Each structure stands twice: as C-alpha cells, then as structure tokens.
C-alpha cells in the first residue's frame, strides 16, 4: 500500500496558522470586516483543500487510500528520525472534513456573536490558531507531531476559555482546563516514550513513531501494548474529559459560546477518540486496555447524564451532555467498533455544535442570561433557533430519521455483541439523554415566559449571520446519519465501508483477540475471507440489530414524552419529583458528585501545603539555607569572637600563654620518658 505524495496537505495546516499569525501581529489595527474575512477565508480554504484530498482519496482503490506529505525532518538524533509529515487516509479525511466544515460555520456564527467585543481580532486569531493546531493533530502521521497539535489545542482552549480575562473566574477556568489537560498529556507522553523504548533500534532508521511503522511492528509492541494503551488513554481522558479528568469541561463554559461549540463540542474533545481510533492496531492487541476504555466510557456517559439532568445553566447541561456522548464514543472504541465511534463523533459534532450555537443565540438574545429558570416561551420569538434546536434534540435523542439514531444505534448494537452490562448502561443513558434534552427544550422554548421584565420585549431572533449556520447544521443533523444507513434497513452503510481499510487491523486484530492467540499474518486471501466473515455476521445479526434499534427508539420517545409531560404541564410535579426522589440524591447530582471539591481537598490543598511549608519554609529556607549555609557562617563568626577574647592586651597574660606553650611542647617531647 505505497502512499501517494502530494504537496498541498501542508497548506491545510498552514492556512489557518498563517491567518492566526497575521491577525496576531496586526492586533487591534485591522477593521472588523477584514478580520472576519481573513479568519473565515483561511478556514474555508482548508475546507476546500480537505474536500480535494477527500475526492482524491475516493478516486484511489480502496486498499491504497493514503496521501502523504513529508515537509521536513524535525528531530533527527541518534537512530531517532522524527519528522514533520502529514497524511490523509479515510479516517483523517472524515475528521478534517467535518472539523474544517464545522469550524467554518462557527467562524461565520462568531462574526455575529462577537460583534462589538473589544478583543474581536484577538478572538479570531485564537480561533484560527485552534483550527490550525487541530488540523496538525488530525493530519500528522506520527505521534510526536500529533502531540504538538494535542498540546496546541490545549493551549488554544486555555486562551479561549479565559478570553474575557478581566473576570478572574474565566481565567481560572482556563488555567484549570490547561492543567487537567496537562495531566492527561503527562500520560500520553509516557505512552510515547514506552513505544520509543520498545521499538528503539529495531525499526531500521525509519520514524519509529509513525503510525504505519508502528502498525507493522505490532509483534514487538504486543508485550507492552497494555501499558502503552492505558497511558495513551490517560491522555485521552484528559483531552476528551472522561472520568477522572472531566472536571475541566463544565468550567470551560466560561468561554464565549462559539468557543464551546467548536472546541468543547465538535473538535478538541473528540481528539481523544480520534487518537484511540488511530491507534486501533495497538488497542486490539490488549483486550484489557479495550475493556478499560469501554468501562470508563460507559461510566462517564452514565455519570455525566445523571448530572446533566439536574443542571440549570443551559451551557452546563450541554457540557455534561457532551461528556456523556464522549463516553458513548469511547464505549464504541472500547468494544472494537472504532468505525461506529468515529461515526458518532461526526454526527455528534453536527447536532452538539448546533445545540451550543442555538444556546448561544438564546443567551445572546437574553443579554447573557444562561440560567434556564429565567427563560421559557421563546418558541414564538425565536422560531429558527427553536426549529433547529428541536431537530438537534431529536437527533441527539436518537429519534429515527435523525443522525443520532444511526450512530448511537450502531454503538449500542456493537456493545450488545460485546457485553450485555455495558449495553444496559448505554441503553439507560440513551433514555436519560432524551429526557434531559427535552427538559432543556421545554424550559427554554415552551411554557410561560419567565424572562425578567426589562428584557422580555427585546427578545428577537438572532441576526442572519448566526441563524444560517444553525440551519445548515440543522439539515446536517437530519441527513448526517444517512451516510451510515445500516444494512438491516437496506442501506449499504457507506461510512463503515469507507473507514474499513483503516480499521482492517481492527477486524483482523478483533479476530485474533477473540480467536486463538496465533499471530497469523493474514495474507491477501485470508484477509478477504475475514472481511467476508464479518459481513455474514452482520446479516445474521440483522434481526437482533433491528430489535435493538426499535427498543432504543421506543426508549427515546418515552424519554421525550416524560420530559415534556413533566416540564411542560406540571412544573409542580417536577418540584415534587425532585423532593420525592430524596433531597440527598438530588443534592448529590446537583453538586456534580462534588468531584471538584474532592480534588481540591485531596490534591490541591495538601499539594500547596507540602510545597509551601515542608519544601520551601522547612527544607529550603530552613534546613539548607538556614542551618547549613548561614549556620556555618554564624558558627565561624562565633569562633572568631571567642578567639578575639584571647588578645586582651594584658601583658602578663601573654607571658603566661608563652609559658603554657612551652609546657605543651615539653609535654609532647617528654611523653615517652
């Protein structure tokens, strides 16, 4: 499968980075029109180039779909050859398409949302930088370059969350996001180092970090695969906000809403899922690592969904919903259905970005009011936002024709194949998702308006520049899922087949993992048989898949119904339900399981105490500086003053000391007598 080298891949990355640099340098000196134009055009440029790569890829035979673009040699030391080179294979094509697509829409949306803000140019510079970094992450063909993008997006999320830095809370949220990401990156770094150590010297001069080379040497990686898998996954939990490192995402809502839409819904948080999918050849080697990924994914989904139900801030609900959906994606990867995971990433990007932007336009209209208790009855005043958000709600709940149904159903089906317990959790989460999304819709758009007086008559639909992206994404939420029309409904699931070659190791590894441990290198013939085998399994299972799909659809509709009934008709019932369910459970969920407080108490405060009291005051200033350094100085001083007393000017004392001297010498001489 020899790759085709092209030259334009680097421009996909350079365009936004160039835009960021240009806007950054000429900060505050360009009129807003120029700024928005430059920013949006660079992203559009990237989108077009990505499309070109996509179509070039489609033209290639299914087996050889790989474009590479080696830019230059980055870190050539000893036998290590790390270089900056990009590649596009079916997986990357999907990612860059929807990343640049959604980013472009959000740029357009931001023009309206951020109008009149003092840091307008700085905002777009950061946004372009983010898109550039995300594209580096997705396009890179080796781990260190991916790590550059990985930390780059972390930096941009820090800058953008803390964008309105006048308010200390925002910058604190930004710092928290960066640090938690950094903890995850610590694990990622160690994973890379472990790979380097196992493959050192045995790769013959090639870049041992590049995915292709690693894929070829799976036999070498096998013994340490579990360790590497878990370490890399630690990085993913940091970046994609999974348990235990998900605490930063809800606080990240402090940033402007388009930022939340782009970074904390569509692109950055999915980086973890992309990385796990990209390293599928490694993960399939270790059933234990896969299990961990699946379990953590499921648990996160459940925990986040339960918290989302009780949140009042519209963006916090969406944030927890994102964490929950990410849990789904990791669950998919955990059970080996990488394709389904990526499919859900794409569909989720569409409707979650839409939900965030819709929320943004609501907040924009209500002059930065984010608390749902002071909304309601906006249906008539903001029709477009309402319709698009309603579509997104249906999509995320997994109602039939909408995108969410297809991707979520595929995940649930694959989970069902793997383990019933996880499926049950996933199924419950689906219901919960439908319920809290309906609650959000009901509280915002239905019922009587609880908007406070002076704003209520000002509420109007957002300007066109904000609603167009909503509409586009609304359509995508609808048709987005059709690309993966499943077989049991007569479709050919083109999305799955499109990604198949990338996850070929997946299938092959899957067989190996499930079948005997013989590391059989599937020759072409055997390879075809395997693919065929997988095919039949799907058909046989078609009936069960249909049943599962119907079950999840039913649950979704039930969730929606209950949601409407509870939050529309009888708010008092909602109140009663809340008390009836026991103040304690509700208090626990409302308080977000007090994870933040636990971290603060267990890690932050003792850490500070340790370094301040024990390290600085005791050892540094006290022990080393105080006792050793100044101590010796003081003791010499004291010794000096004692000796000074001897020179007291009394003549007879000198005479005496002479005699004493003589005496001592005599003693020495005479000692042997």
């Amino acid at each position: 499968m020899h790759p085709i080298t092209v030259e334009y891949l680097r421009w996909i990355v350079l365009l936004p980075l160039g835009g960021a640099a240009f806007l950054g340098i000429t900060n505050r000196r360009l009129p807003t029109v120029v700024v928005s134009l430059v920013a949006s055009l660079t992203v559009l440029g990237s989108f077009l180039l990505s499309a070109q790569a996509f179509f070039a890829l489609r033209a290639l035979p299914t087996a050889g779909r790989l474009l590479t673009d080696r830019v230059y040699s980055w870190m050539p030391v000893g036998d290590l050859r790390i270089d900056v080179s990009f590649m596009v294979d079916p997986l990357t094509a999907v990612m860059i398409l929807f990343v640049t697509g959604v980013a472009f829409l959000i740029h357009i949306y931001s023009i309206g949302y951020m109008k009149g803000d003092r840091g307008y140019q700085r905002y777009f510079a950061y946004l372009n930088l983010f898109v550039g970094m995300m594209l580096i992450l997705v396009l890179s063909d080796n781990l260190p370059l991916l790590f550059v993008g990985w930390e780059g997006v972390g930096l941009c999320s820090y800058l953008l969350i803390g964008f309105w830095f006048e308010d200390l809370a925002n910058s604190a949220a930004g710092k928290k996001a960066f640090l938690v990401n950094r903890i995850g990156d610590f694990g990622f770094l160690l994973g890379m180092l472990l790979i380097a150590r196992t493959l050192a010297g045995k790769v013959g001069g090639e870049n041992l970090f590049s995915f292709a080379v690693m894929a070829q040497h799976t036999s070498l990686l096998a013994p340490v695969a579990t360790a590497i898998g878990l370490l890399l996954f630690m990085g993913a939990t940091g970046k994609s906000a999974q348990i235990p490192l998900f605490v930063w995402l809800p606080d990240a809502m402090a940033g402007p809403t388009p930022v939340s839409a782009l970074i904390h819904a569509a692109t950055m948080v999915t980086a973890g899922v992309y990385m796990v999918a990209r390293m599928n050849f490694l993960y399939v080697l270790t059933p234990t690592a896969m299990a961990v990924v699946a379990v953590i994914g499921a648990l996160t989904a459940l925990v986040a969904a339960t918290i989302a139900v009780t949140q009042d801030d519209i963006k916090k609900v969406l944030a927890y919903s994102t964490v929950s959906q990410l849990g789904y994606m990791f669950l998919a990867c955990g059970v080996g259905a990488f394709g389904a995971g990526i499919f859900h990433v794409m569909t989720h990007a569409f409707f979650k970005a839409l939900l965030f932007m819709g929320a943004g336009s609501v907040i924009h209209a209500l002059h930065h009011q984010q608390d749902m208790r002071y909304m309601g009855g906006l249906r008539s005043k903001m029709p477009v936002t309402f319709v698009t958000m309603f579509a997104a709600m249906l999509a995320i709940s997994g109602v039939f024709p909408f995108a969410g149904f297809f991707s979520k159903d595929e995940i649930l089906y694959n989970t069902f194949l793997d383990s019933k317990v996880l499926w049950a959790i996933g199924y419950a989460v689906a219901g919960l998702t439908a319920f809290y999304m309906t609650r959000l819709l009901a509280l915002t758009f239905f019922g009587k308006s609880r908007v406070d007086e002076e704003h209520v008559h000002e509420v109007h639909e957002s300007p066109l520049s904000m609603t167009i992206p909503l509409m586009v994404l609304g359509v995508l939420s609808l048709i987005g899922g059709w690309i993966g029309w499943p077989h049991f409904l007569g479709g050919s699931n083109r999305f799955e087949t499109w990604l198949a070659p990338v996850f070929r190791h997946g299938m092959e590894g899957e067989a190996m993992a499930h079948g005997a441990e013989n590391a059989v290198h599937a020759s072409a013939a055997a390879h075809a048989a395997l693919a065929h085998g997988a095919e039949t399994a799907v058909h046989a299972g078609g009936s069960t898949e249909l049943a599962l799909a119907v079950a999840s659809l039913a649950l979704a509709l039930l969730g929606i119904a209950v949601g409407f009934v509870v939050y529309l008709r009888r708010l008092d019932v909602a109140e009663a339900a809340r008390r009836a369910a026991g103040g304690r459970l509700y208090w626990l969920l409302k308080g977000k399981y007090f994870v933040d407080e636990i971290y603060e108490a267990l890690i932050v405060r003792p850490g500070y105490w340790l370094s301040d009291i024990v390290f600085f005051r005791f050892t540094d200033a006290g022990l080393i500086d105080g006792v050793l350094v100044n101590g010796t100085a003081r003791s010499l001083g004291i010794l000096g003053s004692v000796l000074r007393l001897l020179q007291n000017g009394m003549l007879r004392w000198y005479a005496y000391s002479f005699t004493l001297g003589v005496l001592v010498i005599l003693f020495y001489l005479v000692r042997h007598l």
Partner: protein
Amino acid sequence: MFDASVGLNHYLLLSVLLFVIGVAGVIFRRNAIIMFMSIELMLTSVNLTILAYSRYLGDHTGHVLVLFVFAVAAAEAAVGLAILVELFRKRDTVDVDRFRQLME
C-alpha cells in the same frame, strides 16, 4: 644524697630551679623592672646549664656561647629599660596591667 663528687645532673637540677624561679618572677610580679630582673635570672640559669655541659664535654664552645648570651642579655636589658623609661614618662607607673594599649 651526698655522694662524693658533684656530677652534671646536680648542676642541671640547680639551673632548673633557678629557671623556674625566674619564670615565676615574670608571671607573678606586676612590676616591669622585677620582670626584667627575672628574665636576667632565667638567662643566667641557662648559662649555668651551658657551662655544665661544656665542662662535662671538656670543650670551650660553651664558653663562647655564654659570652654571646652576655652580649644579648645586655642589649636586651638596655632596650627594655629604655622602653620602660619612655612608658614611665607617659603613664607615671610601671604596673604592667595598666599598659592596655594593645587592647584599645
């Protein structure tokens, strides 16, 4: 104790006694002049030892050395006393403890 002849060790013993008395003089007395005298005494006791050995060895080097000791003793006394006179002119006393100049 009184055997017939007087040997070398008798003289040595005697000079030790004189020497110790000289040292005591220097340490105990506060009067500078007495101290000088004690020093002269110590020098004489040393001369005694030298001559005792010289006699024992039957050689005259000891004698020459004693002469030199005389010269030095004389010089030392001269300069010492001169200083003493000068000191006395400044401090009206020869009490050694008063001369604390070294300390101020």
